C-alpha cells in the first residue's frame, strides 16, 4: 500500500512523459490522483490500528502522515481535474505545444510523488531531499506559460526556496551532529531522534531548530523569506497554484511540525514556542497588510495563504493537543478551500482575461456558477460557519488562550477580522456590480467537483466526520 501510493504517480508521470500527447494523458493524471486518494483513505484506516511501512521501515505512515496523504490526494484530484481544462484551453489557442502539455502532465505527477515521499519518509534528511525535489519539479510548472512574468516568478521561486531550504538542511545536519555525539546511536530516523532528544546538546539543537524554522519556513511562506510566494502563486497556471497553495505549503509545514517535535523533546516548550510565535505573528502581520492593498485577486489569494500559514504557525507554537488537532483540521480545510478558490480564479481569468479586481464585475449575474463557487469559497476561507475553517480557527484561538497566550489570540482574532473586511470589499466588487454580458453557464465538469469539495468542507465543519479520529491521532503524533 505504502509503495503503491508512491509508485502510482511516478508510473503515471513516466507514461505521460514518454507517451505521445493525447487527451488521455491528462485523464490518466486524474485517474492516478483518484487512486492516490483511495489509497490514502486505506492507509489512513490502517494507520489508526497499526503502522503500515515499507522498505524495511524507511517509509511508513503514522496518522499524521496519513492525514497529509489525504490532503495531497484530495487537492491533487481537484487540481488534476482543473489541469485537464487548463491543457485543453492552452492547446486550443496554441499557447502551448503538445510536447509542453506532456511535460506539464509528467511534472504534476512528479510533484505529487515528491510530496508523498516527503510525508512517508521516516528519515528527516530524506524528507528534506523530497521537499527540495518539490522545488525543482515545480519550477517549470510555475513558468509553464513562458511569459516574462512567469519566468521571473520561477526564477525567484527556485532561488529563494533553494536558499531557504538549504538552511533547513544545515539545521538537519546540525541535529545529526548533535545525535552523533549524544548518548545513543547516531541516526536521522525521526522516531529515534525524538526518543534520544533529551540527551542532545541544547546549544546545538537550538541553533539547528532556528535554521530549520527559517529554512522550511521559506517554503511554508513564513516571513521574512516569503517574497517568492505571491509571485509564484499568481503567475503559475491555476491548477498549479491550487496544488502549491493547497498542499505544498502545508507539506513544508508538516516537515516543520516533525522537527518541532524533536526540538520540544530536547529543549522543552519555551524556546520552540517563542521562535514559532515570532515567525507566526510577523507572517500574519505582513500577510494582512499586503492583503488589504491588493488590486490583483490571485495575489490576494496568495497573501491569504500566507495569513493561514501564519495562523498554523501560531497553533504549533501553542503546541497543546487541542491546538495541534485544530492545526491539522485547518490544514485540511485550507487545502480544500484554497484550491477551489484558485481553480475558480483561474476560470475567471480565462473568462475575463484579467486578474485585476477592477476588471471583473457582475460575476454572479454573468456566470452564476463561477460567482457562486467563488463567493462560497471565500466564505469558507474567512472562516464562516458551517465550514471547517470556522471550527479550526476557533480551536487555534482557544488553544492559544488556554496556553496563557491570550494576547496572541487577541492579535490573531484582530488579523482574522481584518481579513474578512479586506476580502469582502473586493469580492463584493467582483461578484456584484454591473453585468456587461449575458449569463453563461459553467460546464459541469468544473462546477460539480468544486461543489463536492465545498460540500465536504461544510460536512467536516459540522460533524468532523470522517476525519476526527485521524486528526486526533495525528495531533498525538505531532505532540
Amino acid at each position, binding site marked *: 500500500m505504502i509503495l503503491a501510493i508512491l509508485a502510482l504517480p511516478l508510473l503515471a508521470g513516466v507514461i505521460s512523459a514518454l507517451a505521445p500527447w493525447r487527451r488521455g494523458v491528462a485523464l490518466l493524471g486524474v485517474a492516478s490522483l483518484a487512486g492516490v486518494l483511495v489509497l490514502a483513505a486505506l492507509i489512513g484506516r490502517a494507520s489508526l490500528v497499526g503502522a503500515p511501512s515499507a522498505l524495511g521501515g*524507511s517509509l511508513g505512515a503514522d496518522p499524521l502522515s496519513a492525514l497529509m496523504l489525504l490532503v495531497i490526494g484530495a487537492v491533487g484530484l481537484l487540481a488534476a481535474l482543473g489541469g485537464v481544462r487548463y491543457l485543453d484551453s492552452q492547446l486550443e489557442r496554441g499557447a502551448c505545444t503538445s510536447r509542453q502539455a506532456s511535460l506539464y502532465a509528467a511534472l504534476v505527477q512528479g510533484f505529487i510523488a515528491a510530496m508523498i515521499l516527503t510525508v512517508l519518509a521516516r*528519515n528527516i*534528511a*530524506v524528507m*528534506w*531531499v523530497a521537499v*527540495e*525535489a518539490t*522545488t*525543482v519539479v515545480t*519550477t*517549470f510548472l510555475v*513558468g509553464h506559460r*513562458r511569459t*516574462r*512574468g512567469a*519566468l*521571473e*516568478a*520561477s*526564477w*525567484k521561486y*527556485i*532561488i529563494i526556496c*533553494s*536558499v531557504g531550504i*538549504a538552511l533547513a*538542511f*544545515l539545521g538537519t*545536519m*546540525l541535529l*545529526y*551532529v*548533535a545525535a*552523533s*555525539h549524544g548518548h545513543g546511536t*547516531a541516526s*536521522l530516523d525521526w522516531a529515534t531522534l525524538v526518543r534520544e532528544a533529551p540527551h542532545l*546538546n541544547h*546549544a*546545538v539543537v537550538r*541553533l539547528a531548530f532556528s535554521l530549520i524554522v527559517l529554512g522550511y519556513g521559506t517554503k511554508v511562506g513564513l516571513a521574512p523569506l516569503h517574497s517568492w510566494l*505571491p*509571485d509564484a502563486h*499568481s*503567475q503559475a497556471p491555476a491548477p498549479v497554484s491550487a496544488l502549491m497553495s493547497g498542499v505544498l505549503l502545508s507539506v513544508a509545514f508538516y516537515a516543520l511540525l516533525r522537527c518541532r517535535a524533536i526540538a520540544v523533546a530536547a529543549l522543552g516548550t519555551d524556546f520552540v514556542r517563542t521562535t514559532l510565535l515570532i515567525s507566526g505573528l510577523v507572517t500574519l502581520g505582513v500577510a494582512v497588510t*499586503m492583503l488589504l*492593498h*491588493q488590486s490583483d485577486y490571485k*495575489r490576494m489569494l496568495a497573501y491569504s495563504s500566507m495569513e493561514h500559514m501564519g495562523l498554523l504557525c501560531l497553533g504549533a507554537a501553542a503546541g497543546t493537543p487541542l491546538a495541534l488537532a485544530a492545526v491539522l483540521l485547518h490544514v485540511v480545510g485550507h487545502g480544500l478551500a484554497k484550491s477551489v478558490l484558485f481553480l475558480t480564479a483561474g476560470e475567471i481569468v480565462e473568462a475575463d482575461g484579467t486578474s485585476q479586481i477592477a476588471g471583473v464585475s457582475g460575476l454572479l449575474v454573468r456566470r452564476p456558477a463561477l460567482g457562486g463557487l467563488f463567493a462560497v469559497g471565500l466564505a469558507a476561507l474567512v472562516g464562516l460557519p458551517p465550514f471547517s475553517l470556522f471550527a479550526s480557527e476557533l480551536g487555534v484561538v482557544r488553544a492559544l488562550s488556554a496556553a496563557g497566550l491570550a494576547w496572541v489570540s487577541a492579535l490573531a482574532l484582530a488579523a482574522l477580522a481584518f481579513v474578512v473586511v479586506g476580502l469582502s470589499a473586493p469580492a463584493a466588487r467582483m461578484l456584484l456590480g454591473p453585468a456587461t454580458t449575458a449569463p453563461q453557464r459553467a460546464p459541469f465538469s468544473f462546477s460539480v467537483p468544486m461543489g463536492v469539495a465545498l460540500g465536504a468542507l461544510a460536512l467536516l465543519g459540522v460533524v468532523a466526520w470522517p476525519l476526527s479520529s485521524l486528526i486526533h491521532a495525528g495531533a498525538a503524533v505531532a505532540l
Partner: protein
Amino acid sequence: MSFSYVSLLDLAVVVVMVTAALTLWRQSLAAAVKALAVQGVGLAAVAVILGAHRHDLVLVGVGVLVLAIKAVAVPWLIGRVVAHDHAAREASPLINVPASLVGAGVLTLLAFAATRGVVALVATPAGRLIPFGVAIVLIGFFSMVVRRRAVSQIVGLLTIDNGIALTAFLGTSGVPLVVELGVTLDVLLAVVVLQVLVAHLQRHFNVHDLDQLRDLHD
C-alpha cells in the same frame, strides 16, 4: 601520520574557504565558475581525506562523487551559460569588492561565534574546522544578496550548498549514503533547471541582469 592528516585536512578546508572568498573578489563570471570548480575539488579532498583517516570506504566514494558532480558537471553546466553571455562580468555589484571582502571577514567571525557550542561538542581535529563550513554558507548568502547577475546567484547558491556539505563531513561520522545521493541528485537537477531558465531568459527576453526582472511587485 596523525600530524599529516590534520595538516592535509586543514589545507583542503582552506582551499574551499579561499575559493569562496574568490567568488566575491573576482568580477568576471568565468573566474567565479572556475573558483567554484576548484572549491568542488577541495570539498572532494576533504571527504577523501576524512574517509582515508577513518578507513571509511563509503566516504571516499562520496568524495569521488563530489568530484564528478561539483568539480566537473556543475561548473560545466554553468560555464555553458556564461559562454553565451557577451559581457560576462559582474559590472555593478551592490557593494564594491573591498567592502564585500571585509563583509566576508565579518561573517567568518560571526560563524566562529555562532558555532562555539558545536565545536565544543564535537571536539575533534575535524570538528574544530566546522566554523569554516558555516562561514562559507554565510559568504554564499552574502554573495547572493550583493550580486545581481543570474550566474552569480547560482554560484552563490552552490557555495551555500558546499558550505553545508563541508559542515556535514566535518561534524558527523558520515551522512547515510541514500541521503548523500538524494542531495547530490537534487543539486544537479536544480542546476539543470536554473541553467535552462537562464538560457531561456537570455535567448527570448535578453535578460542577463536580475535588475531587469522587476515586473512582479506589489
